[in-house]
C-alpha cells in the first residue's frame, strides 16, 4: 500500500518535473543522429565534424510553406556550404498520413530540384522529437563548438513566407554571419506560421 502511494507520488513528481515541450533550446548540445539520405546512404551529424556548423532544416515535400521556401533553402546551401555551414534537410512526416512525403517522393523532389545537400528521412520521427521540431520548414542552426554541436538559432528562415523579395529580416543568414564574425546572434529564436509535423498516430 505504502509502496504504491510512493510510486504514485513519484509518478506525479516525474510528470510535473518533465518540461511541457521536449527538444533542444538555444545553447543545448545536440546528440548525434544517423538517417537515410535520398541517395540511399546513411548520413550522421558526426560526418560534419570538420564544418563550422550545420543548418538543420526540418522540411517536407507537401507543406505549402516548404514549397514557398524550397528555392530559398537551396540558395542557403549554395551560399553557405562553402563557408562552412552546409544545409542538412530532414523530412519527419509520417507518409501513411501524408503520402506525398514518402521516401520515394523525397527522392523525386531531390532529383527534380537538384539538391546538393542531404535530404534525410526521419522514419521513426525520433530526431524531430529530440530536436523539438514542430513544423516545416523549421530551422535549427548548429555551431561546431570544438567537436560538439550546440544550437545557435531556432526558428524561421526569414520574416516573409509569401514573398522572398519583400523579406526584411533574414534570420538564418544574420545568425550565420554573426557566428562567422564571433558576434552575438541578434535573434536566437523566432516563430512563423507553418504546417505541423504529421506525427504517427500514437
Amino acid at each position, binding site marked *: 500500500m505504502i509502496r504504491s502511494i510512493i510510486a504514485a507520488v513519484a509518478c506525479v513528481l516525474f510528470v510535473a518535473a518533465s518540461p511541457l515541450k521536449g527538444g533542444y533550446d538555444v545553447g543545448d548540445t545536440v546528440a548525434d543522429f544517423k538517417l537515410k539520405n535520398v541517395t540511399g546512404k546513411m548520413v550522421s551529424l558526426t560526418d560534419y565534424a570538420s564544418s563550422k556548423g550545420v543548418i538543420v532544416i526540418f522540411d517536407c515535400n507537401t507543406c505549402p510553406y516548404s514549397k514557398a521556401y524550397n528555392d530559398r533553402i537551396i540558395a542557403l546551401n549554395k551560399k553557405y556550404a562553402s563557408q562552412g555551414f552546409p544545409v542538412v534537410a530532414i523530412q519527419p512526416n509520417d507518409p501513411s498520413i501524408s503520402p506525398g512525403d514518402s521516401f520515394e517522393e523525397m527522392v523525386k523532389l531531390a532529383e527534380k530540384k537538384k539538391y546538393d545537400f542531404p535530404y534525410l528521412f526521419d522514419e521513426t520521427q525520433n530526431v524531430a522529437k529530440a530536436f523539438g521540431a514542430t513544423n516545416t520548414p523549421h530551422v535549427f542552426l548548429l555551431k561546431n563548438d570544438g567537436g560538439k554541436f550546440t544550437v545557435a538559432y531556432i526558428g524561421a528562415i526569414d*520574416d516573409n513566407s509569401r514573398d522572398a523579395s519583400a523579406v*526584411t529580416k533574414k534570420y538564418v543568414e544574420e545568425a550565420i554571419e554573426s557566428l562567422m564574425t564571433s558576434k552575438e546572434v541578434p535573434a536566437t529564436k523566432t516563430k512563423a*506560421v507553418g504546417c505541423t509535423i504529421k506525427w504517427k498516430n500514437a
Partner: protein
Amino acid sequence: MGLIYCMKKAFFLLIVLLPGAVYSQSAAEVVKLKQLQDHINRETSNIKVINFWATWCGPCVKEMPLFEKLGAERKDVEVTLVSLDLDLNPKPEVVHRFVERKKLKSKVLILDEKDPNSWINQIEKNWSGAIPATIIINGKTGQRKFVEKELHEGDLEKLIAEIL
C-alpha cells in the same frame, strides 16, 4: 390603404436587404491583429473557441466539421475560425470561396498581418505558429486552454469540460 402600402414597402425592403444582411454576417472579414485581439478578449459569459486554420491545411479542413457541429449544438459556445491564408496568398477571395463552398456557419475572420514572429506571441506564447491550433476560453473565469494539433471527435468537449 396607407398601412397596406407601408407593409408592402417594408416587405419589399426586407426582401431586398435580407440577403445582403445575411451575406455580410457570414462573409469572412479581413482583420488586423488588434481587431483579432479585441475579438478574442471580448466580454461574454459563453465559452470562446478560436481555431486557427488555412484552406491549404489538410488537418485543419478535416477537423473543421467538429467546430461547426459544436457551434450549432451548444448555445454556450461561440466559435471563431481564424484563417491565416493571407500569410502565403494575398487574396482573401480564396477564403471567401471556401466559406461559401463548405457553407460554414461559424464566424470566420481572415488575419492580415506580416512578420508572424511579431504577432504569434501576442496571441499565444506556447504557440509555435503551426496550424491547426485552437484556443478555448471560459468567458466567465478567463480560464484558457491551448492545443496545437488536429482535434478528433470528442476532443473539444473534453477540453471545454476541463475549464468549466
